[in-house]
């Protein structure tokens, strides 16, 4: 590496026709890291940022200090987590199908990442606000957001709380702590900081949680958010979902020479942790810790959730063109549903049979709602929204030029 300067182009471990290869990824043992004090400082967070907090070991046993930290999370709570994830998976499956049938224009799954949103959301309280990306529908699921609203949005039909304004999956629900999704990557991250500042100023006791993908950490607003969070120290959790891919672009293009995304946050003076995102117990434990810390006024914290995007980027994408075919199966952190299931079976609270039954029940439930929602219109069989909605809500009060345009349109 001396002589002429030569540019570096980061490459993924494997491309199509190559064997999946994650040998470069170091997976620390479960239970290796302790639970830091709630007022953890950035300088003291190095090991958490460069290591990885894991609770479930390879046998599915919960081990180490973080397991103790959530000892109060009993089997019922974990079963709820499992059901959240199963419901998420069922919804993704049914809606993907709907898109394939032309019943909606677009869909996007979060397969493999269910533990993150599901586990995190269950640690929040009413009034807390997520600033999600398009891949955090699991937050809505674990917030018990009505499936009818969720699906209505995707069908852009009469059930859509957004009245057809937004692309499918661009949900928005103030009541369920889910900020309106933008589509322009990164913008929500600094908005989360602003919202949290407002919380602190108004002493609401509520916290905010920003969400961003590994690829979108490259965006300007990621920087803006870390910077302002570091300066003003509002009650905000800055989540980074590192699922290894940004459409076709390997995560290495956004990491560059940095060790982890968590380490990047530390450069801003924000304490940061990296977590096995496919380990529901690790997610729940670290979320609980982060929520408690943030609500207590110890300032911002960044969490890198390490996971893998199992599905295509969206229904517009075909990953077989850019990554190894069986990469998901080779992912060293496994599948979040399978891992939690194994754990629950191991602790005697679950069985293969009950799992199969639960899957079927949940799929039924989801399918039933789906049918009801589809009755309100789909792309194949539309019951269109009134065109006059186009002019509604551009401003609080409709200005004259919009009234003229609405008339010109014939309404």
């Amino acid at each position, binding site marked *: 590496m001396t002589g002429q300067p030569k540019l570096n182009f980061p490459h993924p471990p494997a491309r199509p026709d190559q064997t999946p290869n994650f040998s470069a990824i170091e997976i620390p043992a479960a239970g290796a890291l302790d639970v830091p004090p709630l007022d953890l400082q950035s300088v003291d967070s190095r090991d958490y940022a460069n290591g990885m907090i894991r609770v479930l070991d390879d046998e599915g046993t919960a081990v180490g200090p973080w397991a103790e930290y959530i000892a109060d999370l009993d089997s019922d709570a974990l079963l709820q987590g499992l059901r959240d994830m199963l419901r998420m998976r069922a919804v993704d499956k049914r809606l993907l199908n709907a898109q394939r049938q032309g019943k909606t224009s677009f869909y996007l799954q979060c397969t493999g990442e269910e533990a993150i949103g599901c586990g995190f959301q269950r640690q929040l309280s009413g009034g807390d606000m997520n600033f999600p990306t398009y891949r955090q529908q699991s937050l809505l699921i674990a917030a018990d957001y009505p499936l009818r609203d969720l699906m209505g949005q995707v069908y852009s039909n009469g059930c859509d709380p957004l009245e057809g304004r937004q692309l499918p999956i661009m949900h928005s629900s103030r009541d369920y702590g889910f900020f309106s999704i*933008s589509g322009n990557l990164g913008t929500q991250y600094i*908005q989360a900081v602003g919202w949290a500042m407002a919380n602190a100023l108004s002493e609401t006791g509520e916290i905010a949680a920003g969400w961003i993908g590994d690829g979108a950490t490259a965006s300007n607003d990621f920087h803006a958010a870390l910077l302002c969070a570091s300066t003003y120290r509002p009650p905000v959790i800055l989540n980074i979902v590192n699922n290894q891919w940004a459409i076709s672009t390997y995560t290495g293009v956004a990491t560059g020479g940095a060790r982890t995304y968590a380490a990047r946050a530390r450069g801003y003076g924000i304490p940061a942790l990296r977590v096995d995102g496919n380990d529901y117990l690790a997610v729940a434990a670290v979320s609980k810790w982060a929520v408690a810390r943030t609500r207590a006024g110890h300032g911002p914290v960044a969490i890198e959730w390490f996971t893998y995007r199992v599905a295509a980027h969206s229904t517009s994408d075909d990953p077989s063109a850019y990554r190894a075919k069986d990469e998901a199966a080779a992912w060293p952190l496994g599948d979040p549903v399978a891992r939690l299931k194994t754990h629950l079976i191991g602790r005697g609270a679950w069985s293969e049979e009950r799992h199969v039954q639960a899957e079927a029940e949940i799929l039924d439930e989801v399918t039933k709602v789906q049918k009801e929602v589809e009755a309100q219109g789909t792309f194949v069989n539309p019951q269109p929204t009134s065109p006059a909605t186009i002019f509604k809500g*551009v401003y*609080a*009060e409709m200005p004259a030029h919009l009234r003229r345009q609405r008339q010109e349109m014939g309404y």
Partner: protein
Amino acid sequence: MTMIEALRDAMDVKLAQDPKVLIFGEDVGYFGGVFRCTAGLQAKHGEERVFDTPINESAIVGMAVGMAAQGMRPCVEVQFADYVYPAFDQITQEAARLRYRSNETFTCPLVVRMPTGGGIFGGQTHSQSPEALFTHVAGLKVVIPSTPYDAKGLLIAAIEDPDPVIFLEPKRLYNGPFHGDHAGKSTGWSQHPAGEVPEGHYSIDIGTAEVRRAGTDVTVLAYGTMVYVAEAAAERAGVDAEIIDLRSLLPLDLDTIRASVEKTGRCVVVHEATRTSGFGGELIAEVQEACFWHLKSPLQRITGWDAPYPHATEWDYFPGPDRVARALTKAMED
């Protein structure tokens, strides 16, 4: 009262009245802003209400969007309009559309203040007039006062508005009216009737224009500094111009414009911004459509040239009273 004092007064009134109002931006806190518009406000209202930010315009607006959505009323400063571009994404894609895209469950009542326009030998990065860009964006309001009285009333209205408002401050008018005679002596606002600014709360409806000079020959559409340049030009040309100060570009007071042009049948539009796709194009398109059968001569635009704002040749670039006067004369000849 100068326009600076009037703006400060508006913020002071709102800070006192509404605990949700917040003021922030680069150097606006302790120091009170490079143009001193916020001087004294931090000392009076506290650091939690008025504070300094890192130098990142998209962070400033991005934070404001989040705060506004959570019920605050942020009124932020961008140090010069020339520095608003890093915030363009947050303003046009986020603030402007939040109400719409969330079907009104999240809203974005914020104000972005910025000094605009030339005439201070500021070169390319302290002289720009980007108003047209914002008027293209559905969901924004765009306001530009030309007097201390209007500045206060409009800023109060902007802070109280339920939607995002781009508030452009013609910096050449901060300390006094400017008729475009750069070599001449300038007088301050204290000698101008519009420098008289009432105490306390009042507001001016966003979306209403003001006829600054009634006339019968030709309608002049202007805003900001160009209102005074137009006055000087009308005098120079000896034309009985009706000068309309738009004050609000979006929404636009088309009724007032139409009434005037139907009367005069002639119209000249003036602005400092570059000509191509400037707001003058929009005005001409609207006027010709609304008043086509009344027009006696072609609508004209007098604007900054389609070049970056220069330093040494500023007064050849600035659309001064001579150029405007020639257009008025031409409008009458055609």
